[in-house]
């Protein structure tokens, strides 16, 4: 073991003396430039603002060059203090300038490898590697991330880290261009590929509107920095002279812009989308136009598939597929298997991914009792009634009809929500369907269920319903069978994982 506390000295790339096959590697030296590019864009904007707004006074030039220097120095120190190595058992990462951090991940616990290249990375041929273990993502922590190494090195790491039971190849020469040894390009089986026809689902996914919202947020932020307050003045302007025409026109404008924008966004996110099965028993999703991502999931750890149908996409007979697996956060859609695409494709992908002849999510689902419809309607309508009542009492008189107008739609959603509810069980999977706005049909491996959470609220008890949550290490952690009849639900849970619930069932039936 080398001493990780020892300050690196001499040439930047100089390795420390270590045991064979486990030299320390550094992130790539080009990161010096790339990190400022990726993260310092905001600062650069400020610099340009400083430089070009004044008359070139001396302090402006000094301040801006100091900023640039600080950014460069910071990224130099980050680069200087970060090193990683791969031993036979572990991946280790040491990082941090003021707070030293040492991360070690046992190699046999690695479940996923996620390669991301932002535009800044791509210009310089780099890639960030994120290694996921079985642990659930703690919000705010990135797990073990190497940001960044060369693309060849990233590819080498991906293959290396996901190979189980194979002795690691000797690490390449430390320093630059570590992948002097050839990375073999194994034959991989393509499961699904982007079809340009799928673009028609882009406008339905509302991503355009979301993007506009984000853009407006960003612009307002900048404007605020420069002492303008557009939102405030906009509202003042609107309230001084409220006119239906202006509001309507801008709403329509927003929607149209959203529809138009959504297409390039879809292209940007999912360009070159390819879902492949690699020879080392991993599933690999590659996608992206500007920011490219490649997510590899150990196939053995795949616990199921979640078919999601947002309302509008569902109307267009489309769906997207999401992997239910350990080691991937839902952050940045890293668990995505298939972008919005025709539902048949989603089923085909599910079949291929799970290696079954018949997509479990197409099973006929057992509907839930009538009482569930009542619960669903109440849940969706009552909040709006309360809001309407509240507004009628406390708000100006024009406000309360708005929630009242929404009530019928809420009732429709509630009804649709009830129609979506359902569950089924086959010899390998527990299937459950939930929700209306984003209808999600989950097929969860029965062996992946590691416990139950069975919940009955006061009203559910009165109508003889219960919500059964199957807890699992993968994906969202718990998948619900909502508002199922009590007898049905317990039978389901008992059948799905035999012997787990049985000892306690007698007690439950005497309970009521």
């Amino acid at each position: 073991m080398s001493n990780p506390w020892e300050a690196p000295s001499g040439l930047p790339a100089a390795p420390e003396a270590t045991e064979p096959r486990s030299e320390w590697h550094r992130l790539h030296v080009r990161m010096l430039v790339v990190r400022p590019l990726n993260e310092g864009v905001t600062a650069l904007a400020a610099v340009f603002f400083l430089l070009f707004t004044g008359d070139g006074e001396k302090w402006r030039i000094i301040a801006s060059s100091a900023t640039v220097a600080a950014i460069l120095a910071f990224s130099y120190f980050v680069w200087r203090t970060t090193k990683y190595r791969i031993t036979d058992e572990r991946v280790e990462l040491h990082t941090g300038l003021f707070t030293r951090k040492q991360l070690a991940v046992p190699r046999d616990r690695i479940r996923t490898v996620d390669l991301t290249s932002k535009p800044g990375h791509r210009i310089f041929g780099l890639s960030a590697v994120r290694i996921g273990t079985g642990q659930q993502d703690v919000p705010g922590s990135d797990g073990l991330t190497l940001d960044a190494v060369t693309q060849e090195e990233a590819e080498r790491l991906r293959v290396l880290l996901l190979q189980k039971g194979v002795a690691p190849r000797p690490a390449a020469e430390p320093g630059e261009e570590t992948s002097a040894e050839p990375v073999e390009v194994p034959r991989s089986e393509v499961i699904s590929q982007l079809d340009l026809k799928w673009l028609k689902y882009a406008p339905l996914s509302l991503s355009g509107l979301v993007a506009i919202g984000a853009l407006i947020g960003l612009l307002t932020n900048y404007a605020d920095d420069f002492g303008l307050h557009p939102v405030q003045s906009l509202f003042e302007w609107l309230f001084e002279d409220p006119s239906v025409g202006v509001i309507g026109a801008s709403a329509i404008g927003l929607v149209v812009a959203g529809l138009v924008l959504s297409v390039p966004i879809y292209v940007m996110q999912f360009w070159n989308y390819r879902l492949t099965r690699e020879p080392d028993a991993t599933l690999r999703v590659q996608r992206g136009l500007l920011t490219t991502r490649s997510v590899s999931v150990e196939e053995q750890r795949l616990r199921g598939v979640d078919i999601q149908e947002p309302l509008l996409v569902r109307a267009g007979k489309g769906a997207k597929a999401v992997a239910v697996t350990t080691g991937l956060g839902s952050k940045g859609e890293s668990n995505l298997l298939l972008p919005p695409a025709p539902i048949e494709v989603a089923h085909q992908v599910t079949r291929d991914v799970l290696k079954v002849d018949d997509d479990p999510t197409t099973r006929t689902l057992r509907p839930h009792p009538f009482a569930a419809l009542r619960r669903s309607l109440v849940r969706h309508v009552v909040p709006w009634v309360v809001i309407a009542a509240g507004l009628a009492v406390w708000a100006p008189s024009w406000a309360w009809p708005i929630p009242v107008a929404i009530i019928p739609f809420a009732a429709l959603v509630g009804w649709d929500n009830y129609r979506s509810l359902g569950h089924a069980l086959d010899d390998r999977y527990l299937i459950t369907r939930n929700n209306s706005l984003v209808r999600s049909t989950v097929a969860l491996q029965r062996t992946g269920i590691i416990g139950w959470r069975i919940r009955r609220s006061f009203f559910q008890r009165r109508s003889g319903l219960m919500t059964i949550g199957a807890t699992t290490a993968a994906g969202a952690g718990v998948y619900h069978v909502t508002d199922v009849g009590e007898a049905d639900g317990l039978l389901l849970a008992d059948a799905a994982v035999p012997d787990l619930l049985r000892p306690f069932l007698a007690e439950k039936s005497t309970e009521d």
Partner: protein
Amino acid sequence: MLWTMQAALFWLVLFVPQLIVFLLVSEPPTWEVALLAATGAVGLLHTAVEPSWRYRVHRWETTPDAVYTLSGWLSQEWRVAPVSRIQTIDTKRGPFQQILGLATVTVTTASAAGPVEIEGLDHDVARRLVVELTNTTQATPGDAT
């Protein structure tokens, strides 16, 4: 067992914040007095009913195969975790629990959503339970994901 003590614990937990509310308000307008009275009444009723109800509902059991709890009062929740999937076992004692000689045992599985909490155990029982669970867990092979 110590269910009565646990009820007392809930009493305390619920009573103290209300006491603070009573003490903090000075020279209240009428609506505030009404609100205060309502809070007090509901609070008293709640403290009278809720702990014993919760206590009546609350139960737990461990078998060599699984850990099981039932908790809640208006909303009730069963949680079952098989011993073979247990990742960690924690014991936790808050200040009230220390006064009353109680402890909470939390059994965590690999799922982010599935910790099984057994609240208000007698401290000795909790210790024995932890030892017992640890032994059975260690005897079970596999990495529990």
